[in-house]
């Protein structure tokens, strides 16, 4: 997979863009930390906190993901790669579904994670990329998410 160097703002944040090197069939992985697990309100069942589906606040703030194909192209096993310290599991999205829902997806390689990418939301009325997902966008992400590395007794959707 080509390693694109995205443009950055003066604060070093990637300027949101839609990366055509990320194909519609590509799988994007989102790691779940133990910090993202909360009571569901139902006995003996926990759930994923909506904060898992929040971007970094502020302009150009995006939601971090790992690009599966990029990991595989480096001869690494994705399910091992994403299970770092404090990570209990992961969900994934299909790039095509995210784009249809109005999100932008772009590679954002980091020194410690060259397979890192971001998902950005857009507010249609303003056509401006903002570091926030509306409640509707968060719910869409929660509905689109599928288990990549399942955590038992956790509800994926509330």
């Amino acid at each position, binding site marked *: 997979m080509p390693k694109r160097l995205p443009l950055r703002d003066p604060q070093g944040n990637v300027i949101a863009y839609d990366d055509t090197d990320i194909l519609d069939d590509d799988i994007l992985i989102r790691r779940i930390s133990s910090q993202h697990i909360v009571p569901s309100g139902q006995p003996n069942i926990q759930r994923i906190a*909506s904060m898992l589906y*929040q971007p970094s606040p502020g302009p150009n703030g995006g939601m971090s993901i790992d690009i599966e194909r990029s990991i595989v192209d480096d001869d690494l096993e994705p399910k091992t790669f994403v299970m770092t310290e404090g990570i209990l599991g992961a969900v994934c999205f299909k790039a095509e579904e995210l784009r249809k829902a109005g999100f932008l997806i772009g590679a954002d390689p*980091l020194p410690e994670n060259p397979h890192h990418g971001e998902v950005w939301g857009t507010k249609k009325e303003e056509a401006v990329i903002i570091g926030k997902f509306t409640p509707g966008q968060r719910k869409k992400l929660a509905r689109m998410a599928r288990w990549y590395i399942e955590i038992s007794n956790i509800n994926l959707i509330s």
Partner: protein
Amino acid sequence: MEEVVIMNYDYIGSTTTVSFSSSENAESQEQRGIDVYLSTRLEEWRDCVDRRVRELLLLKQGWDGYQAEPVNMWTINFALNMLRSVCNQDTPAPSIVPGVKGDLQIEWHIGDVDLELHVIAPNNVEAWRETPDEKMDDDIALTNNFKIVEQWIEQLPELACAQETTAA
């Protein structure tokens, strides 16, 4: 001193035990029992939140597997002050979830009722609630007036009871 055990102060399965002198009148016993029960509930609530805050303060850079920052102390402080102003002794203890930029979210999930307060920074809060009868399209931006949050929280036990009645 004769001891009497009160076991009827039961809240979601927890029991408060109070000892009384046999010379104490019934009215005084009841009032003292209520006072102890309420302060115990508040202490349990505070302990729960305190424990969680201590965990959050120990989070290191990259806690989410990516580039998440530790939770900002000023943000935690503001969030705790906000909780003190909007919660009462009947409020269930909330979950507190860190964000990636030093922010955090305080949330309650009771049945089909969701209430989320995203504390982005001091004086910068986004509040959202969903009930079976109300679906909000956007968050409400708040700075330091949390009247609406206080009202939502007051309604939590009532909404939870209404759900249990419907389900029964």
